[in-house]
């Protein structure tokens, strides 16, 4: 029997041991109605600690809304959003801001500040939320930019960057404060397959280096199964499957199979 640590197949780094203990984020019976439509309908979900969890589902299934609940950007109409046992939906604004220091978030379009350079964007959370000196900030920012392969782009403005570069800068910004949890809202949507895989590889690589908890919304099916430990399938505001990736891939749920295969016939008829 070999005592060698297994290697992560896609990124080639040593895999991290499965963590023990409670899930880091827990959604309990969460309901949310927006503009008269029930977007989340009694969602119960556990996000495992120090693992990559992918959330998949049809467009408009409520994935982004669910992700925003996890960081308190949207409060539920009913139910609880627990981060390490604390219901963030009931916290005051100041207490919520303290909890958010544990998070980094990468938004769909990157959400970089367009009046700031790449360097200033990545330095922004450090300047605003820490007491670090400019020397240390510089060191951290440059190291994160090197990690995402953008050493030479620090002086550029967001409108001078390609879609893939914007996501990489946003990723560098999301992890510059060394958060415990990073949320990704469609980090690869609209990118070509090579750049998409390079971003997913970067996410996987960073996970294995730092052991962050990562939650990622994705439409890249089936590619995303290669890069995630757990998969959550959301449909019509409900979690229809939440399990380790291998189990979801072999799920007997007809909707899950239709989503994985991209069949136009099945339980969901769009036309």
């Amino acid at each position, binding site marked *: 029997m070999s005592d060698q640590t297994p290697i992560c197949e896609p990124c080639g780094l040593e895999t991290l041991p499965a963590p023990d203990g409670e899930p880091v984020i827990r959604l309990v019976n969460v309901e949310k109605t927006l503009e008269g439509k029930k977007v989340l309908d009694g969602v119960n979900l556990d996000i495992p600690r120090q693992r990559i969890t992918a959330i998949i589902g049809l467009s408009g299934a409520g994935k982004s809304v669910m992700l925003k609940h996890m960081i308190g*950007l949207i409060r539920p109409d009913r139910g609880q959003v627990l981060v390490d046992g604390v219901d963030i939906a009931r916290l005051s604004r100041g207490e919520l*801001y*303290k909890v*958010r220091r544990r998070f*980094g978030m990468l*938004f769909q*379009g990157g*959400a970089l500040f367009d009046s700031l350079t790449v360097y200033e964007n990545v330095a922004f*959370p450090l300047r605003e*939320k820490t007491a670090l000196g400019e020397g240390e900030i510089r060191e951290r920012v440059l190291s994160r930019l090197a990690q995402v392969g953008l050493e030479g782009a620090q002086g550029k403005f967001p409108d001078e960057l390609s879609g893939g570069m914007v996501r990489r800068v946003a990723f560098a910004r999301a992890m510059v404060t060394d958060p415990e949890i990073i949320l990704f809202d469609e980090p690869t949507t609209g990118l070509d397959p090579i750049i998409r895989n390079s971003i997913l590889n970067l996410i996987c690589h960073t996970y294995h280096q730092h052991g962050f908890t990562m939650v990622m919304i994705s439409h890249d099916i089936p590619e995303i199964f290669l890069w995630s430990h757990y998969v959550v399938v959301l449909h019509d505001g409900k979690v229809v499957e939440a399990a380790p990736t291998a189990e979801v891939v072999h799920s007997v749920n007809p909707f899950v199979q239709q989503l994985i295969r991209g069949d136009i016939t099945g339980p969901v008829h769009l036309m």
Partner: protein
Amino acid sequence: MVLLVETIGKRALQGINRMGKMTIFLYATIASLLFPPYRVRRILKQVHFIGVKSLFVIVLTAAFTGMVLGLQGYYTLRKFGSEGLLGSAVALSLIRELGPVLSALMVTGRAGSALTAEIGIMRIGEQINSLESMGIDPVKFLISPRLLGAIVSVPLLTAIFDVVGILGGYVVGVKLLGVNAGVFFGQMEASVEWNDVANGFIKSLIFGLIIAWVCTFKGYFTGRGAEGVSQSTTSAVVLSSVLILVGDYFLTSVLL
């Protein structure tokens, strides 16, 4: 009939809801000013954007407003043989009414619309959500500096408007139409009281607050996409301008 009452009721509720939302927004902005960090550099940047960059348009508008007042005032006063009162007519009109109101309207058009568009684009581009996700209060970070910037800038611009407008009236009245310079300034000095200047200052402070409040509110709660930002920008300019004019009437009636 029931439908009519229903529609009126619905509109009234929406109006009350919107007013409540605006009041809470203003309260949150003012409350956030009371606690550190104070971000003086961001406030100065707004004073530069709202104040310094509006200087040209303010000087231009003020000069021609003063010149028109000089011209109109001279021919009106001449009918009564009172051309000597031109200085006081020009100065009082500018200091009490035209200075604060026209400055505020010009700032609304130049800077207010830009405030709405900038914040609206940040909203639809999820930059405001991004601030929130970092644990940074967007009202404190984005709105408070703009509110303070407008409250500082508009009275200063109004003072400049008054001075340039009076000079415009002087050029037309004294240099072109031949009113005696000593009489022009003497009458002005005799008729303008400290109270007039103070009232104009109070008005401009309140107008500055209205511009920043309305324009940032409309941007912060903008609709979806480019069309949403465009509609917010238009309605911000219209609402600010209307509130300035309506507010001017009520302020005048209280301060007189």
